């Protein structure tokens, strides 16, 4: 039908390559709508300033306790992407970098939290168009009967387009003991999209380190498409205590004198007990301490509380935890 009589708005949009109906390269057009900024930048500083990625990196440094190796890796990745931008601006050709990642580590080590930040950083630097995170597990991807899995997986992929798809405990997708398991089908669709639609979404696979390694060994296709492996260490007790401070401040609570020391004691016991989940256990312990604080105050029907009363977690609120009783019952060897 001849040439269009109008043009596409937007930064450096190329002339439409293919007429409707010929569209084989899915969404090559959508990819053209890249995030503005970082367009004419020629220094690292300019890219960071225009994209405001530095802001997210600084927030990451400030708001997340510990995680030094992770933070360093994310800076490295950001550096790679910024330099890539600069190269592109000078017309140096290169393949779009593969950005799929694996986050391994024990529960509560900050994998989901960091993935959210990662989505923001990738968005600011223009490597994903929207910057949202879609977090799923096996159940969201794999169906119950023949023909159920493909539409389910596609549905999730469609929702994740333009952002980051975070697959928690990804190894459950692969069940070698059942050769007819539908997980394999989900993996295959995933692989295809990871390879062919790199512009459209970034996939992060997360889970325990050892299980993830087994999973990758039996799925080399998947493993070879993961560009960055980030291993999240367990938090040191001091880090956990700082995380507690942060979580309390965020919710306008604080430790009474002595309560912080009690919480440190609590952590020392808790770490040795089963199902310890790092920062998540800290969060849960604080939630329960708040509950006890509330009960304690609730009992004082006639008293007029000050703001200080209402925001203070006392040593006793922590001391009442079952963790202390369990520790007393089974003294360490």
């Amino acid at each position, binding site marked *: 039908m001849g040439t269009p009589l109008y043009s596409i708005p937007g930064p450096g949009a190329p002339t439409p390559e293919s007429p409707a109906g010929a569209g084989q390269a899915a969404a090559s057009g*959508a990819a053209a709508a890249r995030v503005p900024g970082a367009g004419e930048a020629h220094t690292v500083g300019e890219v960071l300033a225009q994209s405001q990625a530095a802001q997210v990196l600084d927030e990451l440094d400030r708001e997340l306790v510990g995680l030094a190796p992770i933070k360093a890796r994310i800076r490295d990745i950001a550096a790679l992407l910024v330099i890539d931008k600069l190269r592109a601006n000078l017309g140096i050709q290169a393949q779009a970098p593969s950005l799929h990642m694996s986050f391994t580590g024990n529960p509560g080590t900050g994998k989901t939290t960091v993935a959210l930040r990662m989505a923001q950083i990738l968005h600011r630097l223009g490597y994903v168009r929207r910057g949202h995170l879609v977090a799923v597990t096996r159940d969201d991807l794999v169906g119950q009967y023949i023909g159920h899995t493909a539409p389910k997986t596609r549905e999730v992929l469609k929702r994740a387009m333009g952002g980051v798809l975070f697959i928690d405990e990804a190894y459950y997708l692969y069940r070698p003991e059942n050769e007819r398991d539908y997980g394999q089908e989900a993996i295959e669709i995933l692989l295809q999209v990871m390879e062919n639609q790199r512009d459209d979404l970034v996939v992060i696979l997360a889970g325990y380190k050892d299980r993830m390694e087994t999973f990758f060994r039996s799925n080399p296709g998947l493993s070879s498409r993961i560009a960055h492996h980030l291993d999240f260490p367990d938090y040191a007790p001091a880090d956990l205590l700082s995380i507690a401070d942060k979580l309390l401040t965020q919710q306008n609570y604080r430790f009474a004198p002595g309560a912080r020391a009690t919480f440190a004691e609590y952590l020392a016991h808790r770490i040795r007990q089963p199902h310890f989940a790092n920062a998540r256990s800290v969060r849960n312990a604080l939630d329960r301490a708040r509950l006890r604080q509330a009960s304690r105050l609730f009992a004082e029907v006639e008293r007029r509380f000050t703001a200080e009363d209402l925001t203070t977690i006392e040593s006793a609120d922590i001391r009442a935890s079952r963790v202390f009783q369990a520790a007393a019952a089974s003294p360490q060897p």
Partner: protein
Amino acid sequence: MMTNPVRKITQGQFSFLPELTDAEIALQIQYGLDRGYAWSIEYTDDPHPRNTFWEMFGMPMFDLKDAAGVLAEVNSCRQTFPQHYIRLVAFDATRGIESIGMSFIVNRPAKEPGFGLIRQELHGRTMRYTVHSYASGRPEGERGGN
């Protein structure tokens, strides 16, 4: 229709314009997504203007953020039904609207035979008119293209 200068079915938005490219379709999809519409894809081989109920290609797509997902689905529909009419329909779920917010054709058969006007003479000099789609004169599955 018979007197239509562009010689193709004109239904929905943009139908008097040259065919949209995929890049332009993506922009329209994104516009809809940004307004919170849910896109769905429909196809038919009977383009009669009163045929309002086309077949659905998959479920309506909720909670999408980016056009790429919808466009991939359009392409999959084009592959399955290259000689059908395919349209994109955006549902606006806003309270009080709950209706179609956008709708436009994204695929058509290679040949569009158009419509004929049938006149039926009745008592006196009364005349009844009806529009007949040449495509639907042929059996299903043989309507598009050749």
